[in-house]
């Protein structure tokens, strides 16, 4: 009776309902599939229809992306990479960034260095101007540098000036600001006294922390001086407007001494999430994306071809061990076992989509520096795994008594796959049970400062293209020496290098130090970073460089259609 009721009363309706449901589901699935359809293989590129002419475009407004909103545009106070990208366009230091990322004369036209490498003299160009017409003088540099180390200013990176005599004494409050080892004998000359020969000084001078500042503006407006209405800078651009969270608009500084060679009229920076950048780029709203997800590399390459640009980046993703306690402090065998058991080529090619270079030692490739690749890097997989297992057993571990340790790493979109793969490799190759544990960055930082983590990721980006910035990580007493590695022999090598004026001999010391690190296995390098960009084909006047500092002033737009 009930059944017939169902059949009679509701049959049609239920059938319709079912059909409707099925139809809806199919439509939805089709929609989803259609939208993702292009991804199934090399297909007609989405943005294939951009035609590029040969003349300059009428509108020379550059639209670039940043990974995050800069916290401040004050060159002394900033701490994030994104802020520095913007200030690279706003200020010019004694040296400046050239088209290929090398150091070219900026405000300084020439310089000399003493025989012992510790005393530098810079000669400024008389035609350099601030954006309000005032001449740029040596006093502006002295003012800025003193401000940088003065504890009262509260900058977060006073150590940037550590190579300069007296800098740290001032920063720690033990000496007056005037004792900083810099002086200006006349308005067009700057002298710097260093603690030891510092070959990378020229790179340091192009950093935001070494930029000149316009004293009158800062003294008049205080913290508000960075507002567009008060802004004064000496670089190719000035700040026109800042909409927090949305964009920063720069416009050409007509009083810049080399304004004639500055092509763009306006540069607009948009802080955007990674995926959003891809979307905006493909929709044509931005022309120069600062990043794209690793995992999308192959697909983007198939869609956008040459618009996907990658190059080496001065940084390394590596893991470190805690040298203060078990299980790693006493057991070099264990450290090396973990090192050998890692299949880096698989990580780089399969997980990293071939984007990143496998790293076997801490210092990335640098000109003039001999890479210290350990011998076992070229062994066959079988031999390497066998040796790893031997070391693991020698350290006292086995199937019955496996290594159980936690691997701390910061939360981040690309990280999870990498560390899943790493821990799986250790399980397969050694039988070690390493548990990946992701934490929010600041929480991790605190744990690292307190040396609480036994095994952790410590990705490191070099401040300047020199081995010291990487090897310093393992120097006794360095603040970011989170592994607490302390080796007098290693420290001695670094000190010797610091005192060495001849660049080649200096590098030899570093090479020895790095060899020592490899032997100790304190660092478990994973991969060297790459810089990744998406660039429209009509954007010219840029080149990749190892520090990924691509300034806007050389860039220009060709006339184009579509995209």
């Amino acid at each position: 009776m009930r059944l017939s009721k169902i059949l009679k009363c509701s049959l049609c309706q239920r059938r319709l309902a079912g059909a409707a449901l099925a139809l809806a589901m199919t439509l939805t699935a089709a929609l989803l599939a259609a939208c993702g359809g292009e991804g199934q293989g090399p297909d007609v590129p989405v943005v294939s229809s951009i035609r590029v002419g040969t003349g300059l475009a009428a509108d020379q407004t550059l639209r670039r992306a940043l990974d995050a909103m800069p916290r401040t545009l004050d060159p002394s106070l900033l701490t994030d990479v994104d802020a520095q990208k913007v200030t690279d366009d706003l200020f010019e230091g004694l040296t400046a960034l050239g088209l290929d990322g090398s150091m070219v004369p900026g405000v300084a036209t020439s310089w000399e260095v003493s025989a012992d490498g510790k005393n530098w003299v810079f000669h400024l160009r008389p035609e350099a101007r601030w954006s309000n017409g005032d001449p740029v003088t040596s006093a502006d540099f002295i003012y800025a540098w003193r401000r940088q180390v003065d504890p009262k200013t509260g900058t977060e990176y006073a150590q940037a000036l550590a190579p300069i005599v007296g800098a740290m004494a001032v920063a720690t409050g033990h000496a007056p600001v005037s004792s900083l080892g810099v002086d200006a004998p006349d308005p067009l000359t700057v002298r710097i006294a260093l603690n030891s020969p510092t070959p990378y000084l020229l790179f340091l001078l192009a950093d935001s922390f070494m930029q000149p500042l316009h004293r009158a503006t800062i003294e008049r407006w205080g913290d508000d001086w960075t507002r567009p209405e008060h802004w004064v800078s000496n670089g190719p651009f000035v700040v026109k407007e800042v909409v927090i969270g949305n964009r920063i608009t720069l416009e050409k500084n007509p009083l810049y001494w080399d304004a004639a060679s500055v092509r763009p009229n306006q540069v607009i920076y948009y802080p955007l999430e990674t995926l959003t950048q891809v979307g905006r780029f493909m929709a044509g709203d931005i022309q120069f994306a600062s990043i794209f997800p690793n995992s999308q590399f192959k697909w983007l390459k198939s869609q956008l071809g040459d618009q996907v640009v990658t190059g080496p980046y001065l940084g390394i993703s590596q893991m470190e061990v805690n040298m203060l306690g078990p299980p790693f402090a006493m057991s070099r065998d264990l450290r090396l076992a973990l090192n050998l058991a890692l299949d880096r080529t698989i990580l780089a090619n399969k997980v990293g989509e071939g984007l990143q270079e496998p790293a076997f030692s801490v210092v990335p490739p640098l000109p003039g520096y001999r890479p210290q690749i350990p011998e076992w890097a070229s062994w066959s997989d079988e031999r390497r795994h066998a040796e790893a297992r031997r070391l693991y057993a020698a350290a006292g571990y086995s199937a019955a008594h496996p290594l159980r340790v936690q691997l701390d790493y910061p939360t981040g979109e690309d990280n999870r796959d990498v560390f899943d793969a790493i821990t799986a490799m250790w399980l397969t190759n050694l039988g070690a049970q390493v548990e990946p544990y992701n934490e929010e960055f600041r929480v991790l930082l605190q744990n690292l400062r307190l040396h609480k983590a036994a095994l952790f990721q410590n990705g490191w980006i070099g401040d300047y293209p020199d081995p010291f910035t990487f090897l310093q990580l393992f120097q006794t007493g360095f603040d970011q020496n989170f592994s607490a590695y302390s080796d007098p022999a290693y420290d001695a090598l670094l000190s010797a290098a610091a005192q060495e004026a001849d660049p080649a001999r200096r590098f030899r010391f570093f090479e020895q130090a790095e060899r020592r690190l490899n032997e100790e296995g304190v660092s478990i390098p994973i991969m060297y970073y790459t810089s990744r960009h998406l660039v429209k084909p009509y954007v010219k006047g840029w080149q990749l460089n190892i520090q990924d500092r691509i300034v806007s002033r050389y860039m220009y737009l060709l006339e184009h259609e579509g995209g």
Partner: protein
Amino acid sequence: MNAAILPRPARAAGQWRQSWERLCRHRPALVALALLGFVVLLALLVPLVSPYDYATPDWDELYQPPGGGHLLGTDGLGRDLLVRVMWGCRISLLVGIAASLVSVLIGVLWGATAGYAGGTTDSLMMRIVDILYTVPFIPLVIVLTVLFGRSFLLVFVAIGAVSWLDIARIVRGQTLSLKNREFIEAARALGLSNTTMIVRHVVPNLLGVVILFEAFLSFLGLGVHAPLASLGTLISDGANHMKSHPYLLTIPAVFLTLIVCSFSYLGDGLRDALDPREQR
């Protein structure tokens, strides 16, 4: 007076059986139940039966589309997607149901008490709800993680602690309006009305919200840790590959949708079954 509020007798045994029969007549609910049952069965059996596990990478089989050796394909590390999705279903269902139960329990108790008590007690209790609504979520989660370490239990607590608020408000609202009608069976009517209303309004929708909540928590470091993944995590990972490998997104999304849809239709069926006012 509103004739809908006739005194209702207590539920006799016969009435429950009638409700069950009504449920059985509700076609979509039955389909939903069957579907849910099927998913649960899959989630339990597949990981036991499959030659693949959720954690072991297979370097030769990265990003395989569905079909062939891997029924639903593989992910970026060559892990079988079917097994991972099944584990995801397990976790999402477990977390969803447990956390929802917790929050429903707290919410009903709180809201009913507030609405029934009225006066200052009601005011106070609802102010507490207001306050809890505004507690900043991310720092709370971080503090909890640091203070209590990593614990699956914490996921329930965190989700339950936040989701009961809506229920409390709705229950209290209903209680308020029903309570002022003077008749003997007010409490019974309340209980019934609340149950049906919760079942109808809140439970089907809450579960979906709760499951997505859990994905967010996993992302912050609370909850299941890699390489395990809940449906929410699989979906958010898949969203990163939306353009290049859409199946990584659509498959877990379909399962999630299936589960949430099923709970919804099941909820509809339960409503019809429990509340005889609505004739079919």
